């Protein structure tokens, strides 16, 4: 293995934190969705790194499944955002405050 596992994990960790910050801090719904995507891909990188470390295929297969599910996530998420935009005319999180949490 040319790149040590620790470095791959570090890269994945940084990417994950970037995604998390994007998902938590941005107010635009599309950007939040994008942040979640980045988090999923960070997990994918960590899986590929681990698969390479153990010389196994499980990690690689896992990534294929993550990609498929991420595609489903985007389609469901964007569909919901479009529906919300049609109803309220905004994709800013702050306009969605009907429900107390």
């Amino acid at each position, binding site marked *: 293995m040319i790149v040590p596992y620790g470095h791959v994990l570090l890269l994945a960790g940084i990417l994950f934190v970037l995604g*998390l910050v994007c998902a938590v801090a941005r107010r635009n719904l599309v950007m939040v969705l994008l942040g979640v995507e980045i*988090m999923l891909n960070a997990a994918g990188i960590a899986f590929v*790194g681990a698969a390479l470390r153990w010389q196994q295929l499980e990690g690689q297969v896992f990534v294929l499944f993550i990609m498929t599910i991420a595609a489903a*996530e985007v389609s469901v998420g964007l569909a919901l955002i479009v529906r919300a935009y049609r109803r309220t005319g905004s994709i800013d999180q702050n306009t969605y405050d009907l429900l107390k949490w």
Partner: protein
Amino acid sequence: MNWGLFIPELYYLAVCGILLLLSMVVKPNPRRDLVSVLFFAALGVAVCLASVRLEGTLFAAAYRVDLFSQVFKVILAVGFLLVVSLCTELNGIDEGHHLEFYLLLTTCTVAMMLLVSSVELLTIYVALELSSYSLYLLVPLRRGHDAAVEAGIKYLLVGTSASAVMLFGFACLYGVIHTTQVAEIVRVLPGMLGQPVATIGLLLAFCGFFFKLAVFPFHFWAPGVYQGAANQVTAFIATASKVAAIAILMRIVALSGGGDAYLVKVLVTLSIASMTLGNLVAIRQKDMKRLLAYSTVAHAGYVLIGLLSFSPSGYASTIFYAFAYLVMKFTCFLVLVKVAADGSDLQIAQLAGLHRRSPLLAMALMVGVFGLAGIPPTVGFAGKFLLFTAAIEKGHLALVFIAMINVVISLYYYLLVVKAAYLLEPDEDRPRIRLSAPITLLLWVLVTVIVAAGIFPAYLLEVADAAARALLGL
């Protein structure tokens, strides 16, 4: 490979296919749709009951069929049937979308059945996501409600973030432990907890499950989603999906064997925080669905008590409680759906005078709510009693003491509901509520089950005990 083991899942998958085809081909007809789905759901319960005795593994040992998973599949099938039987007045959802609504309910049921049999990270992840995405779509299906769309979006964003966090935890675990089999992971993990990556991975992975079960501090989505979703969807989320979450958490906790002291401490803290916060916040709720949401948070805390006992009796009482919880919660939702027949949100004040509008509904609500509060002779009392005994056997005296204080706190807001139904006079005269014969029968059956299973819990407990033994491989 023995496909016979997979029959319940295949059956529900076939139902999904039929519903998908129907939703694309035929014109909507609520009555016909309801009757056909009811038929499929009833047949599904029979299929699950018939396959209760199956045992074996599938898909390179990624999927285990044993008495534990089969008992939970029966409970889930019953939950699905009950929720479908609520849909006689599906006014919360546009008529053209009824078939899609049933389709998504069925995919969610299949996913939860897959979940209770999963013993590998990949199957757990795929099953969890399939069930979540069905729910993300079910919530905003509600007709003409801005709150529903908002609840759907928030549920989706928070839910996918939680599962991304969980997935990263899985990746960390796989990176240290060399396998994706849960049994193997929990066998190796205790020796690895010194490594930061393993600890972080474990904590992140648990986040996802706690999110599903709405344990504090991952409960904040529950009240909004419960309030925003159509009443029937809320009933499904509050009953069937909680049962599946309990099952998968139990499977993972049980695989970890004796229970390492650190994990026990984490579970004790979460349990106390969950029930205390759930009960205290529930007191000031005005909306019935929000009240039930916070009572769910509190019940997640009670369920954790059974899990952290790490003993066969603890697991058996948790399985017993999962069934009891399903029946009691469902009874409350049945009343809620019937009183708010137009599909609107029900305020507790609107329950006023219920005993005159429909004595049977008021009685069922009282029995259901007393069950949730744990008053004898209901099944809720028997369940709580078993949970607390199991915890005391393991020496968690302080925890049980706090739990009992919590039961008393919860009694207050449950009694408020009963008071509204029986003692308060309504501001205006509301018409009597007419119940069809099948619903009347269903109400009587539920009330009988709650009381009878509370007085004679032996048979149910035997089944739960056998399932717990299968879970532990005894």
